[in-house]
């Protein structure tokens, strides 16, 4: 069916993974102003995989890689990064910045469904979760809405033939599981899938010239309705120091004293 791969890679701009988040004063979410942001690490993996599918020159040629992100005015930063890594074009879905993590997964999934249909996408590669909200729902919801097969938390993706058969390996408790599905398909990515590249300077320069279109949720017939209400966000209790024991015997007796043995 598929003459080539038309890949959609949704990405998110999140607080950098190396920064320890702090709760905002209103206790509605984490503080985002003045904090370093970067491309969600799992989304980096999905961009990288899309680019590698192209470079591998498998049985199906990659026709186009579309990166997409919903967010405020700084969102184009991560889209430029995605294009510097190898995406061909990008959509910026303009959604106001908010302290509560932005639109809910279902809203995003509905919007992605609209994009898939309008742009004739046949493979969606998503990070398995964004490291800010850690919800991990969007990919699954999207597959459900589209009625497409899905393979979650992929650690290997292989296009087997021109008919669009794809084999996906993912890690399960006892080892690895290999799934086979046919395009169109939704795949979510896990850490061991690949090692994302650094954007090289020439590619950063090229990315500046790649098309970046600004769109709204309404363009895809979606409204930002909220079904969930965040009541309160608090920090975990501060870690206090542990106790010291002299030797193994001391440790054993302490553990017994605490009822752990």
């Amino acid at each position, binding site marked *: 069916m598929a003459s080539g791969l038309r890949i959609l890679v949704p990405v998110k701009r999140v607080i950098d993974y190396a920064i320890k988040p702090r709760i905002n004063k209103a206790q509605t979410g984490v503080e985002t102003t003045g904090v*370093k942001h970067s491309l969600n690490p799992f989304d980096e993996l999905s961009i990288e995989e899309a680019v590698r599918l192209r470079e591998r020159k498998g049985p199906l040629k990659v026709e186009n890689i579309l990166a997409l992100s919903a967010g405020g005015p700084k969102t184009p930063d991560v889209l430029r990064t995605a294009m510097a890594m190898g995406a061909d074009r990008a959509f910026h879905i303009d959604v106001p910045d908010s302290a509560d993590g932005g639109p809910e997964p279902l809203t995003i999934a509905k919007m992605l469904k609209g994009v898939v249909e309008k742009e004739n996408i046949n493979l969606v590669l998503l990070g398995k979760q964004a490291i800010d909200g850690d919800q991990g729902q969007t990919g699954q919801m999207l597959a459900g809405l589209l009625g497409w097969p899905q393979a979650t938390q992929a650690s290997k993706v292989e296009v087997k033939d021109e008919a669009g058969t794809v084999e996906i390996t993912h890690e399960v408790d006892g080892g690895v599981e290999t799934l086979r599905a046919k395009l169109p398909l939704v795949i979510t990515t896990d850490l061991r899938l690949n090692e994302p590249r650094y954007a090289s300077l020439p590619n950063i320069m090229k990315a500046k010239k790649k098309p970046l279109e600004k769109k709204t949720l309404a363009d895809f017939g979606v409204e930002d309705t909220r079904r969930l209400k965040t009541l309160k966000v608090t920090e975990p209790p501060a870690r206090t120091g542990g106790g010291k024991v002299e030797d193994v015997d001391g440790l054993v007796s302490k553990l017994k004293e605490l009822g752990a043995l």
Partner: protein
Amino acid sequence: MSNPARRLITQSWSRRPQLQHGFFGKPQRLTRLLHARAKEYLQAHDPDLTDSQRTVREAVAKICANYPDEYWLRQEEKKEFPVELHRKLADDGWLGICIPPEFGGSGLGISEAAIMMQTLSESGGGMTAASSVHMNIFGLEPVVKFGTEEQKRRWLEPLVQGRERACFGVTEPNTGLDTLKLQSTARRDGNDYVLSGQKIWISTAQNAHKILILVRTTPLDQVSKPSQGLSLFYTDLDPSVVEITEIPKMGRAAVDTNSLFFDNWRVPATDMVGQENEGFKMILHGMNAERILIAAEALGLGYAAIRRAATYAGERHVFGRAIGQNQAIQHPLADSWMKLEAARLMIYHAARLYDEGYSSGEYANAAKYLGAEAAFQACERAVMVHGGMGYAKEYHVERYLREVLIPRIAPVSREMICNYIGERVLGLPKSY
């Protein structure tokens, strides 16, 4: 206290009450201030950065994160050139940041190159990281401006790709900053020039394949103007013809600095850049840019020192509280941050002017003066804040202090900068 695990935890606190309460009995703040800009590793929040500067900063910071302070400490101990970093920067196209796109570069300006160099230095790599690529970033500007198409193709692409490393040979032991009195000579012989003389303070010569070298082709007493008669060559640096002797020095041991001796060194005439006898003008061309880059490198070290000092001052507890709570510790660091910021504004002001075509040197010189001084003070204070630990290599600030003297001395002394400002801006008589 119903939870037994909690009891175990609180016991150790109750034995050391000074940890629970500050000096004046106030409860201790246990949460760290995590969003302090000066403490964040290679932060990119400076509100004045342009988009392309921020992009460069973030991309270079990602690479630098793989080369922490411990790497640089090890390189210094082993006296090994940071080939891995050089390779990575070359592979990702960073060495070509200022080289025109038609020769494999990206054609960005000094404003972007400066932030790249600042970031490399600020990562903790200091002058070691910066000097390992410095010459390759802007040193070949005379070739870009005055070389023939054939030369550019022959020289720029291998440089950008990191296949060839270059060094820069101007200074001589007997002439110092008095460049017009250079004593090394070249005389034409058939299709070659024959070079004889010596050069000093040639960084990276042990590891370089090429050298950009300035020598006298017409004796000083036969030229109409003293700035005439010097010629510029870019040629293979062959250690079997040129004697390269490393100079043991105070800091930056991983990147070598050398003295060069050569006698009857045959260099093909096709390796001459631009016109014969016009070399001095060509060398001058890149000097303002180099000053801006050196200033940015110094600045990076200054911020690295403040980062370490502020972090340490916040964590180190003496007399029951963080030493950084004492104003005698806190204020000098605050003062240094302000001075670094002031220097930063001058440096990027000079860079922007340079990119816009402004060719006079007062801002580039001022940037290098202010950047080096502010950074030196920051590094010195960082050592003092660390106390005895500051003298230990493990805490890295002593390495910063040794390296920050380089931009204070080179490529031009503070005094010569003051002379320049005195003469050109204040309109006072030349003092030397």
